[in-house]
Every structure is written in structure tokens, then in C-alpha cells.
């Protein structure tokens, strides 16, 4: 209980402290940010430990007649772990990346506040809390999206707000309907809607999936995501590849397994279409990604595609599929953050943001491009990387559910992924070799260290998936 409160509050407290500190003292501010994101991580680990040990961790309350509760279950614990751990990496990366940027105080304030809000989404114990934090996340991250303050950034910000709020509206309606039908919004006692098979259930599912699907970037609700790439790279890496988009994915996982439950979902005709929508997003997203020349936009479309891997696993309604989905949540996040970090280093150190002009970058930034190469191999789903395992279980789930063409979709997506990233890496190492000191200096070291550490973690999990296996199994056992 105390751990839960500390985990949730460390971000907000840190953010407020940063907001009250003087603008100029960079070193002290970085220290505060580091301490509070580390404490957020440590306490989420403690919470997760307690959850996996089977202890009940819960805070509940009521306002205005609405009961809310924060009670992480294994799924929430996994999401909280991913988010808070990567937050620390992103914070360290930011120290390097933001060193010469404007409005650092605002940036760090909202970065820390978003940590709390994301953990709130992760640890929510009923739909009310989930909705509140989900809505708050939009507003907490808005200042980060418009950080540039250029007209383009403001436009992207408006788009982000507009999309997110419309999605949240749909969710609100759906929650009200759920409450009318089930009289209960708690996740704890099994699926909420179990036993109320009504004719309008498919529409309710559509509302939920459409609402959360905005942040999960299901096509055609994805358009805010490439636009939001105007944000600073650590934000793109952390929020638009992991935290914010995962809150949408997490919402859909909740809807499928905690609101409807896999048994009820199995009886809905609309639910059998959902895997195909995910498959469509997977293929089209990555196909569009190959067409993008700006690296960050390419990564954004690629994110859209990869998020649907998780959704695909969830929509198979099979234990193996859910295993794959949870594994993919873990492994994709480490790799994608690595890719974004690399893109940021390239943009900062060489000024190149376009893939077509990255020939020879590898020789001036060898370590960065090595990390990029490792992560690209992971995106294809090659074995020494952790995504192989998620892909394997996703395929296994699809085959087990009798939908073997979905396995072929995953294979095809792997091939398009190769087309999307391998040429970038290879051309980066072709051309003239120039020795340069682009990769020297403290600022680059701050950016490079988290990047390479994450790549190493991905390799490590790939070689020993057993290390995350008990957590994944706990989630699957919780729902099946």
C-alpha cells in the first residue's frame, strides 16, 4: 500500500519540485529528475514483486458517488514495470539530448508528472480509475508534444488532443453502458460483463476498441501518431512508442480480458473480425513505413504496425496468443526505444533526419549504428533478440486458434520489416570511412549509454527469455 502510493506519487512530487526550482541550475535539476524517476522505478518494482507474490495491493475511494480503486494485477504490474524502467532510461537520455534545448524546466516537470499518470493507468483497479488516468495522460503529455512551440508543433498538439479526446468520449459512453448492464466496474472479480449476453454487446465492444484504439493507433485512427513525432526524441521514444500508446493497448487488453473476458468475446461475431483488423494494421503500417524518408516518421508508422502485434495476440483469445502479446509488450518496448534513441543521436550529432541521406553515417557513429542494427534484426524477429519469442508465441497462438493465415501475416510483416530497416543499416556502413569524433564527449555518452544498455537487455532477454517468463505466465494464468 505504501509502496503503491510512493510509486504513484514520486513522479508528481518530483515534477512539482522541478517546477519550483530555478531555471538555470541544470545539474541539480537533473539530479532531482534522476532521483525521482529512479524512485518511481524502485517502488513499481516493489509493487510488482508484491503482486506477483500474490499479496493484495489496493487503494480505493469514492468521489461524487463514483468508486475508484487502484489495485494492480499482474498485467498492470507488467505494464508498470515496463513504463517505469524505460522512464529511467529516457530520463538519462534526456540529460544528454535536452542539454542545449529551451524550456527544460517545463519539459522535465511534465516528463515526471506523466510518469505518475502512466503508472496510474497501469495500476488502476477499475474502469473509473483507468478512464481518469487515461484522460489525464493526454493532458500531461500535451506540453511535451508541443515542446518546440512552432506552428507545426501546435498543430500536431491539437491533432493529438482532438483524437485522444474523441476516443476518450467513446470510452466514457461505453463505461456508462457497462455500468448500466453489469452494475460493477471492478476488474478484480473476473470479467465484468460475464453472463450478460445482450444484443448490443458487439456495439459496446466497438465503442471500447474504437476509444482505446485511438491511442493504440489502430488504423484508421492512427493519424495523430506520425504528427506527434515533432516532439523531442526522448518523448517520441518513451511516450509515442511505449507509455502513451501502451496505455491504449493496455486499455484494449483490459477490455478484452477484464471487461468482456475471453469466453464472452468468443461468442461475439465482431470479436472474430478484430484479429483481421490488427493484421491489416500490421501489414499496412509497416508497408507505409518503408515509404517514409524521415527516420522518425518511419519509426512512427512502424510503431503503429508493431502495436497491432500485441493487439493481434490479445484478439486471438488463446493463452499462447496472450503470452505472445505480453512478451511483445516487453520486448518491443526495449527495441523500439533503442531505435528511437539511435535516431535521436544521429539527428543531434550529424543533423541528418532523412534515411536517404544516411549513407556513411555508420562510420562516424559506429556504436549507435551497431545498436540500430541489433534492434532492426529484432524487429524482423531474428533469434538472438527478444522479439523472436514474442513473435513465436503470437504465431503459436494464431495457429492454436485455428487462424493460421495470421501466422503468415506475421512472417510477411517480418520480411517487410527487413526491407524497412536493413537497407538503412547497410547503407550507413557503406561509403567512405572517415574517422571523426562525432561519438565522443559527455553529452553523447549520456545518450549512448542508455541506448546500448537497452540493446544489451534485448539481447539478454532473447538469449534467456526465462527471466521474464514467470511474469508473463502470471498474467496469462490470471486471465485463463
Amino acid at each position, binding site marked *: 500500500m505504501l509502496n503503491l502510493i510512493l510509486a504513484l506519487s514520486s513522479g508528481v512530487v518530483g515534477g512539482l519540485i522541478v517546477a519550483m526550482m530555478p531555471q538555470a541550475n541544470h545539474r541539480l535539476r537533473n539530479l532531482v529528475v534522476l532521483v525521482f524517476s529512479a524512485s518511481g522505478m524502485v517502488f513499481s518494482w516493489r509493487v510488482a514483486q508484491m503482486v506477483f507474490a500474490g499479496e493484495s495491493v489496493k487503494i480505493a475511494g469514492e468521489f461524487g458517488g463514483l468508486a475508484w480503486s487502484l489495485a494492480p494485477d499482474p498485467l498492470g504490474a507488467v505494464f508498470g514495470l515496463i513504463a517505469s524502467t524505460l522512464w529511467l532510461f529516457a530520463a538519462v537520455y534526456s540529460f544528454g539530448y535536452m542539454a542545449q534545448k529551451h524550456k527544460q524546466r517545463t519539459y522535465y516537470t511534465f516528463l515526471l508528472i506523466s510518469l505518475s499518470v502512466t503508472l496510474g493507468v497501469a495500476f488502476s483497479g477499475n474502469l473509473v480509475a483507468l478512464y481518469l488516468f487515461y484522460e489525464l495522460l493526454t493532458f500531461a503529455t500535451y506540453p511535451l508534444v508541443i515542446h518546440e512551440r512552432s506552428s507545426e508543433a501546435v498543430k500536431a498538439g491539437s491533432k493529438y488532443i482532438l483524437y485522444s479526446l474523441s476516443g476518450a468520449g467513446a470510452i466514457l459512453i461505453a463505461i456508462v453502458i457497462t455500468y448500466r448492464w453489469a452494475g460493477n466496474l471492478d476488474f478484480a472479480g473476473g470479467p465484468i460483463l460475464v453472463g450478460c449476453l445482450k444484443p448490443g454487446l458487439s456495439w459496446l465492444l466497438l465503442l471500447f476498441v474504437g476509444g482505446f484504439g485511438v491511442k493504440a493507433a489502430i488504423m484508421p485512427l492512427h493519424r495523430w501518431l506520425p504528427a506527434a513525432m515533432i516532439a523531442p526524441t526522448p518523448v517520441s521514444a518513451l511516450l509515442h512508442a511505449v507509455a502513451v500508446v501502451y496505455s491504449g493497448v493496455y486499455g484494449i487488453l483490459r477490455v478484452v480480458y477484464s471487461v468482456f473476458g475471453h469466453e464472452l468475446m468468443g461468442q461475439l461475431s465482431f470479436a472474430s473480425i478484430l484479429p483481421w483488423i490488427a493484421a491489416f494494421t500490421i501489414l499496412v503500417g509497416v508497408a507505409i513505413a518503408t*515509404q517514409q524518408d524521415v527516420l522518425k516518421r518511419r519509426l512512427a508508422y512502424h510503431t503503429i504496425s508493431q502495436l497491432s502485434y500485441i493487439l493481434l495476440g490479445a484478439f486471438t483469445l488463446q493463452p499462447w496468443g496472450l503470452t505472445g502479446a505480453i512478451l511483445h509488450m516487453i520486448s518491443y518496448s526495449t527495441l523500439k526505444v533503442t531505435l528511437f534513441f539511435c535516431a535521436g543521436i544521429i539527428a543531434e550529432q550529424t543533423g541528418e533526419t532523412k534515411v536517404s541521406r544516411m549513407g556513411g553515417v555508420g562510420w562516424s557513429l559506429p556504436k549507435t549504428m551497431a545498436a540500430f542494427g541489433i534492434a532492426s*534484426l529484432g524487429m*524482423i*524477429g*531474428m*533469434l*538472438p533478440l527478444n522479439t*523472436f*519469442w514474442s*513473435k*513465436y508465441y503470437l*504465431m*503459436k497462438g494464431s*495457429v*492454436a486458434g485455428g487462424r493460421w493465415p495470421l*501466422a*503468415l501475416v506475421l*512472417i510477411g510483416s*517480418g*520480411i517487410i520489416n*527487413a*526491407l524497412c530497416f*536493413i*537497407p538503412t543499416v*547497410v547503407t550507413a*556502413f*557503406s561509403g567512405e570511412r572517415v574517422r571523426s569524433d562525432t561519438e565522443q564527449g559527455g553529452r553523447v555518452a549520456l545518450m549512448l549509454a542508455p541506448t546500448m544498455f537497452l540493446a544489451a537487455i534485448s539481447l539478454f532477454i532473447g*538469449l*534467456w*527469455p*526465462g*527471466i*521474464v*517468463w*514467470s511474469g508473463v505466465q502470471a498474467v496469462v494464468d490470471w486471465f485463463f
Partner: protein
Amino acid sequence: MLLVIFIAIPFIGALVFFLMRNRSINTPFITSTILLVLGSFGLKSVFGGRPLTYRLPFSGPFVPTFQADPLSAIFVMLAAFLWLVVSIYTPEYMKHEGRARSFDLCTLLTLSAVLGVFLAGDLFTMLLFFELMTITSFFWVVHRWNKEAVRAGYFYLFFSIIGGLFLALGIVLMGAATDVLPAIGAGFVTPLDSRMFTWSIAFFVAGFGIKAGMVPLHLWLPHAHSVAPTPSSALLSGLLIKVGAYGLIRVGEFAGWGMRLGNKVAWLGPGLAILGTCTMLVGVTAALLQSDAKRLLAYHSVSQMGYIILGLGIGLYLGPDGSLGLLGAIYHILNHALFKAALFLGVGIIYIHTKETNLYNLGGLWRRFPVTAILMFLAVLGITGAPGLNGYASKTLLHHAVSLAAKTGMPWVVWVERLFLLVGIGTAASFTKLYYLIFLGKTTKLEVSDDGSPRLQLAMGLLAAVMVGIGLRPKFFLKAMAIPAVRILGMEDAAASLVGLSFWNLGDVTGMIITLILGALLCWAGLKSGVFHWQPPVWLTLEGLGKYAGLGILALWRIVAKFCRSLVTAVRVAGKAMSSRLDLAIRKFDQSRSGTIGRFTLTGISADAAILIVILAFLIAWYTLINFGLPSL
């Protein structure tokens, strides 16, 4: 534990090499020597029928398991030997190529990965090392980093990645078919779901077939093998494509060696045999038309892999009587590794001195390089299957297997036998051409440098010695190594099938000699008539077809992308037009309701808003000041 040490030795070697200041020490040589010695002591017991297994103490879905049965042991020893030979050759050669350090690093890492594939005890471990091998050997292919090398590297990498994905899908389907994934070296599999099983086998065959250069998945091979530096070409052709063959043998094990195939996989034997025959034919035909020595050798790798795949197919097709096919395939894997490596090394020596690999610019070099010429002659005799050298032994075995199948089997096997002989003639022809154009014939006008080192010839000589040894005592390898291997795979009566077989009977020897003479004649005719210069039209070659298919997909992709883009643009334009029209309509409507009160112009909407605000203000005032509390709904 020993098995892990095997894989770790080259890896540690690579680490030491990477950190070491003194780069004059030949680390690959030391590592492969250690491996060879360790292997000949440590893996001896394996042939006595006691396979080694080892599990790493991991938890979770991936528990790396290692095993060594005689088949693995054969491959491990072969790899160690080839690496040893090539590492003698490399330092001298890489002086001319440059960047020897990164090359050696790749060589060591690739050795580690290759040993990992051979010693893997479960499918995941095998796939892991298979993918690692792809990545490390990719750096061999692109070693020169010029345009051609990068293009070949792309080819290689994309085909290999697709192969790896196929294998992954194969594992998934195997898991669906059997519940628990079968271990490697544990015999045949009885599937619960035979439909999934047959698809799984199909994807395995495709995945390993890409590595093995099986038609039509061989397109990457000639490019990659000819553009890589010669030592790595020797290893790529000598060993890395054999990893595909090794995989196919293991797939055959899942289906069941030495039994009539049921479980809906009866297609596997005939399928492999026919694909193997196609591979032989396509490889040899393309090889005849090459003018570049390395490309010619690379196409012959395709063709010789066809022999191996054919042997495997016949072995599966004949079931219990098929041990000759499997034995021949394993034997040919060994022999091809030896002579193809020797051939590549020989061409490499010529390349160092002349900087030329185009056959038509070379000639008469036997005077300058007499030792190389003799060693090359032995290698050429080996690959063409001349009696007294190693190729003869395995080709004879394969031929016996094919004719056995032709006696008992279907009409397609008869055709396979005929084509088998034809490919033999073609092989002889193209190697006569290679040898004639390089060493005999008119003396070349090129400048020939003269700073040769005996180490280069020593490497070739080692290979040639083993080749001659095998050629003179063809049964030794079979009895000592191949038969235990085949027996453990499931062919119990493998030894019995060899009882009546003599390698030196008149029929086989004269048959081979006739083949060689016909080949030489064909070569003479071809050179005279200039047929070998004929370039087939693009649509006739598989490569051309592949290119057209690629271009077609690209064009289709462009059309679809253009269509989608125009669709999106159209929707956006329509939306904008609609919204502006709506806007205009609202404004018009608004204007129509506007009027003036005194000096103020009041538009309709502002009037509406004013009314709304007044109502709201009234409601707020009512509920807060006059009638407390919210209305009950």
C-alpha cells in the same frame, strides 16, 4: 559440457583476438587446431553409439540443449579441418585483399555459429546459431563494401532472413502438430495433427533449402560466393551451404529415415529427389555458360548440392532400402567440401598473382605455377568423379542408389537416372573448360607477379592429400563414421547394403571414364563453336524470372501505393471542400438572420449564444440562489 566448450573455443578466440594488440598471431589457426585435437579425442566415444547431450541450466521457454551423435561429429570435424586449412591460407591471401582483422574476426565467429548449429540439441538452439551464422557470414560477403559486394550481401541477407522466418514458422507448426517440440537426434516424430506436421516439414525444407542453394531458392548463392574474398568463398561453398544439407538430414529424421513415410509426408522423398535433380541441372547448365572462374565454381556448388539433395530424397523415397542414398549424400557432403575448397583456393592463388578471374583472359599458367596446376588437377579430377579420387566414391554410391530406385520405382526415377548421367558429363565438360582455360591453352598476356608463398600451396596440398586418401580407400570413411551415423538416424541395415558393393568393379569405373571422355569432348565442341559465350535471354534464366517477378511486385506495389495515396488525397480534398461548403452555408444562414439593433450588428449565431447564456445564467441562478441543489434525474 564438452559440447559447449566446442562452441565457446572459437568465440573466446574471437574475444581474445578482438582485445589483442599483437595481430600477427594466427588465432583462427590455433583455435581450429585445438578444436580438431579436442574433437578427435572427445567425440570418439560418439561413434561407439553413446551420443553426448548437455542442457544449460536455464528456465523458461528456452533451455539451450546440445547433443552430439555421429552425424554431428562428422560435421564438426569437417568444419574444424576446413577452417584449419583455410586459416593457413588466409594471412597470405588477405595481404592482397586488405582488412584482414575484421575478416578473421568474422571467420572465428562464424566457426562458433556453425559448430553451434551442428551441436544443437533442440530446434530453438539450432535456429539461434543458424541466424547467428547468417549475420556473421554476411560480413564475409560484403567484405569489399563496393557496390557489387553490397548488392550480393543484400541478396544473401534477405534470402537468409526469409529462410530463418520459414524455419521459425516450421517450428511453430511443429509445436502445433506435436504438442512438445521434438529434440534433434531423437528419431522420428509421431504427430498428433498430421496436416500441421506436413506443413511444418514443408517450411523446414524451404528454410534449409534456401541455405543449401536448392532450386529455385539458390539465386543468392552465385552472387554471394563469387563476390566474397576467396578464403571465405571456400568456406561458404565448402561448409556453410552444407549447414542447409545438415538441416535437411535432420528434417528427414523427423519424418523418419529408413521407414515408409506415412503421416502425409510421403511427398518428401520424391519431392527432394526431383528438386535435387533440378538443382543439379540448373547449376551445371549455368556453370557451363560462366566466364568468371569464381562464378563457375559457385554454380557448381549449386549443382553439387543437387547431388546431395537427390541422395537424401532417394534415401527417403526408398525407405528401409534407402541407406545407399543417405550414405552417398553424407559422403558427398564431405567430398564436396574438400574439393570445392581446394578449387576455390586454387583460383584464389591465380587471382593473387594475376588480379583476374575471367577465364578467357587467363591461360598457359602451368609453367608459372606447376605445383598449383598439379593440385588443381587433382581437385578437378575429384569433382568430376574420376576413379582414384574422392568424388568417385560418393558419386558411385549415389549412382547405385539412383539405379536401385529406378529398378523398383516409378518412371520419374528413370528420368532422374538419365539426368544424373547427363549432369556428370556437364560437370566434366565445365571443369575441363576451367582447367584448360587457366592452365593450358595460349599463354596469358597479363602481368603475372611472382611473390608466391608456399603456405598457399600447403593449404591446397592438405586438402588434396585427404582427397587422394579417401579416393584410394573409399570404404574407410563409410565404415568408421558414416555407417554409425546412418544407423543412429534409423537405417539399421546400412552396413548390409554395402556388403555386395565394390567400388572398383569394371562397370562403374568404365562408366565414369566414359563420362569424363564425353565431358572433354563436349568441352572441346563448346569451346570451338563458342557456345560457352552464349548468354541466355533474360526470360530464360531463373535469375531473370526472379528479377521480373521482383520488378512486377515492385510495379504492382507502386500502383497500389499510388492508388492509395490518390484515394487519401481525394478523401482529404473532398473533406475540405465539404467543410468549407458547410462553413459557407452556415455563414449564409447566419447572415440571413442578422439584423441591426441601433448601432450593433447582431449575427444569428451571436444572438443564439446570447440566448443560451441567458438561459444558462438563469438556470445557475435558479439552482444556486433560489432553489438550492441539483435537479434529481
